[in-house]
């Protein structure tokens, strides 16, 4: 099931959408405006009507757009070191090209790479680059540049001065990168790595120019140099609230693209202001992405009225929001009964209706629909107030006290408020909340200074991509899961080559999470993209191999094929 979006086949002038879960609501369609969760069927019909109209349009080169994003990327764009949020990934995807790109079936397909192939054992991958591609500064994209990027990612930084804190763990299974010919490298891994190629399907792991990688710390952050459709005109200001303006890469390797002359990313933390900005005739946004439910609801209403176009990410491959338990020995949630109580005590459906107008989809595990390992019912403890009360009385001595912590956010506060309200209905349960700034995240999360951390993560591609969050020896295993059985499954999943075997392994991972209640899953968080009606091509066109692109994925969307009616 695809999350995405229109494919514009130039040969037949019709936009075709595989739309079962992605809705494009144009004028005079129905559904969803009153907050009722839609099953997608009405939107599917409306989308097809819209697509018939969209398919008759011919992209027009030129123009500029302002793209609203939810936050500034003050940490800069030194890709191997950067801690990108969704906004940063959105911008990175405009500057950098990835080696591969996901198609609408979430299969990694060659993008910058002409091919990326494993050997029979999947412990050596051969990456061949497309010839004739240059970075924005004129440097050639060749095997040497690629090797430099891969080595830095895995921690072999040499004299570059780069400090890839997280990625040296993520790519620790890479043992060597060798140049074979001017356009080809081989990557050898410590263990068979079945889905190694899927890691490279985002500007998050975009390929940077050697000049950027070797530059001083400040320059690496404020002077991004990629091969992407847009480039900077001058070093970026990374101050909070500043726009990031990118101009067309006139030597872009995909003929005729991009259509736009420039794109400006403007941060606006309030989703409602983003929507107002799209509605405003002047000085606002041409398109904006957000996941706050009320704003998405309003955007759908506006789309029904024909004032905007609205695209919503489908549940497939989406991020999951959840309560992360701290299971360190001195934590209250080291006791599985405490975790069981919380899982049984929260009415997620009511929570979703109250806070999200029912617009998000209840999640039961780390792997969303569309990703292997997903199960409709992995055995997550269901809402059961009587069982919750029994556990509280018989297993927890009638007392439970803890604090829910979260990154400062008006929306998340409303979620946590409702959770606390539900839990506080049980006598003897005392739950408080504490929000914290981004600057404290490392201390809170890495330091284990929390009882429960409410956050969202794990956008779905291959579940092997989640190993870094769950394995017991990972520095970002924030909940301190220490489960040899889970570790073994994750390691097996990385190296298994048989699809059926991998599916079985990750289903076991999913069931393990459910049976041990390591997290209290809440819902899949869906992103929406709102645009002015005259903005088109926002979900991508056609990948180099002819496949349909994925469209919106975990909050970011492609910008290469965006065009504006002049």
């Amino acid at each position: 099931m695809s999350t995405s979006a229109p494919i514009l086949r130039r040969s037949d002038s019709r936009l075709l959408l595989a739309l079962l879960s992605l809705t494009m609501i144009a004028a005079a369609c129905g559904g969803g405006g009153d907050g009722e969760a839609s099953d997608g069927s009405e939107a599917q019909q409306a989308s097809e009507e819209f697509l018939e109209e969209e398919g008759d349009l011919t992209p027009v080169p030129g123009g500029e757009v302002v793209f609203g994003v939810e936050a500034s990327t003050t940490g800069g764009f030194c890709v191997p070191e950067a801690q990108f949020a969704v906004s940063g990934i959105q911008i990175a995807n405009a500057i950098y090209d990835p080696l591969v790109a996901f198609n609408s079936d979430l299969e990694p397909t060659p993008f910058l790479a002409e091919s990326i192939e494993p050997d029979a054992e999947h412990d050596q991958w051969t990456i061949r680059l497309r010839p004739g591609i240059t970075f924005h500064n004129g440097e050639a994209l060749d095997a040497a540049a690629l090797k430099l990027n891969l080595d830095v990612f895995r921690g072999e930084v040499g004299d570059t001065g780069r400090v890839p804190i997280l990625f040296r763990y993520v790519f620790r299974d890479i043992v060597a990168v060798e140049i074979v010919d001017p356009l080809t490298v081989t990557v050898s891994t410590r263990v068979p790595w079945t889905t190694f190629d899927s890691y490279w399907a985002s500007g998050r792991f975009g390929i940077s120019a050697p000049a950027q990688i070797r530059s001083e710390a400040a320059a690496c952050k404020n002077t991004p140099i990629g091969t992407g459709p847009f480039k900077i005109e001058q070093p970026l200001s990374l101050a909070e609230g500043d726009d990031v303006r990118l101009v067309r890469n006139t030597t872009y390797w995909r003929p005729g693209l991009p259509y736009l002359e420039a794109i400006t990313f403007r941060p606006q933390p309030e989703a409602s202001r983003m929507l107002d900005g799209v509605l405003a005739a002047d000085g606002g946004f041409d398109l904006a992405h957000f996941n706050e439910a009320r704003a998405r609801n309003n955007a759908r209403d506006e789309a029904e009225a024909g004032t905007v176009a609205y695209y919503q990410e489908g549940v497939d491959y989406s991020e999951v929001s959840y309560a992360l338990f701290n299971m360190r020995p001195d934590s209250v949630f080291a006791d599985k009964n405490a975790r069981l109580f919380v899982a049984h005590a929260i009415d997620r459906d009511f929570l979703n209706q109250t806070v999200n107008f029912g617009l998000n989809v209840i999640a039961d595990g780390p792997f969303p629909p569309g990703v292997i390992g997903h199960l409709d019912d992995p055995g997550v403890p269901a809402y059961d107030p009587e069982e919750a009360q029994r556990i509280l009385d018989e297993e927890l001595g009638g007392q439970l006290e803890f604090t829910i912590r979260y990154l400062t956010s008006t929306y998340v506060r409303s979620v946590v408020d409702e959770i606390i309200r539900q839990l506080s209905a049980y006598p003897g349960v005392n739950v408080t909340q504490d929000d914290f700034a981004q600057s404290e995240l490392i201390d809170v999360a890495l330091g284990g200074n929390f009882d429960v951390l409410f956050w969202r993560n794990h956008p779905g591609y291959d579940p092997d991509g989640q190993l870094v969050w769950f394995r017991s020896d990972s520095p970002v295993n924030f909940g301190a899961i220490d489960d040899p059985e889970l570790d073994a499954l994750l390691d097996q999943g990385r190296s298994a080559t048989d699809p059926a075997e991998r599916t079985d392994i990750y289903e076991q991972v999913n069931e393990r999470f459910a049976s041990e209640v390591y997290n209290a899953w809440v819902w899949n968080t869906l992103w929406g993209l709102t645009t002015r009606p005259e903005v088109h091509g926002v979900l991508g066109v056609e990948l180099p191999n002819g496949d349909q692109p994925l469209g919106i994925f975990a909050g970011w969307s492609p910008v290469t094929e965006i065009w504006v009616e002049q």
Partner: protein
Amino acid sequence: MSRRYIARRLAQLVLVLLVVSFFSFSLLKLLPGDEVSVGCTFCAEAEQERFIEENALDDPFVVQYVKWLGRLATGDLGRYYDNDQAVTDVLSRALPVTLQLMAYATLVALAVAIPLGVATAYKAGSVFDRISSAAAFGMLAVPNFVLAIYLSYLLSVKWSVFPFSGYESFGTDPVRHFQLMVLPTLSLAVGQIAVYMRLLRSDMIQTLQEDYITMAKAKGLPPRRILLGHAMRPSSLTLLTVAGINIGTLISGSIVIEQIFSLPGVGSQLVFAILNGELIAAQAYIALIGITYVLLNFVIDLLYGVVDPRIRYG
């Protein structure tokens, strides 16, 4: 106003500035947490040592302050931890935006409040006065961010009178600059209008009861000349004082307004620096805001003698 007075005030000013800077520096030093772990979280040992040396973290507290003050005086405000950007670079772009917003809001507020204050004082007790007073209370009751969103929705989204958000410098495009600054200015100014109008009205009513005003009326001077020529200046002292104090209100108001209208000003930078543990930047912004506040009020002190020549300083 004598030169001796000005010299004495300057000396006091320097002392106040030192106190303000000391408190700004100390405030963030008192926060829990270790500067090295916040500012150099993933640094190698050599980098940490360089960080400690650059910020004089091994020195005694007073020595740290003196060194920091020296750097502040020479324009070296330090660098952001996260992206190594010089605070000075950010400030040089952000400060004009905030100063413009504050200046425009003050000018608009005074331009509206002074005539209104004079008129309502002159017509005290009339229907006009009562309506104006009610409107002033209404304006005072509405928070500036609520007004900002309301104005933005009506005048940008619904009626497309003004642009929605963003900033253009005056030098690049003056027309666009002012178009973009109208709504933020109004959002900040409206509350100030109410305050200034009420203050001026109150002082003016008192002044109009003075003997010399009665004398002026008896001489047959026109009301306009009496109001503007004789009553206005002595009634302005409170207004001047409050305008100085209100700088703090404008600074805090600008923080929210900048966020709403996507203005890249100092307010946004300060909030970001505090919330994200950018201690060096936060220190610099807090110190500069304090210094600016003190300097502006110093200027206002000097203006007293200009506004009311009866005020003499020995």
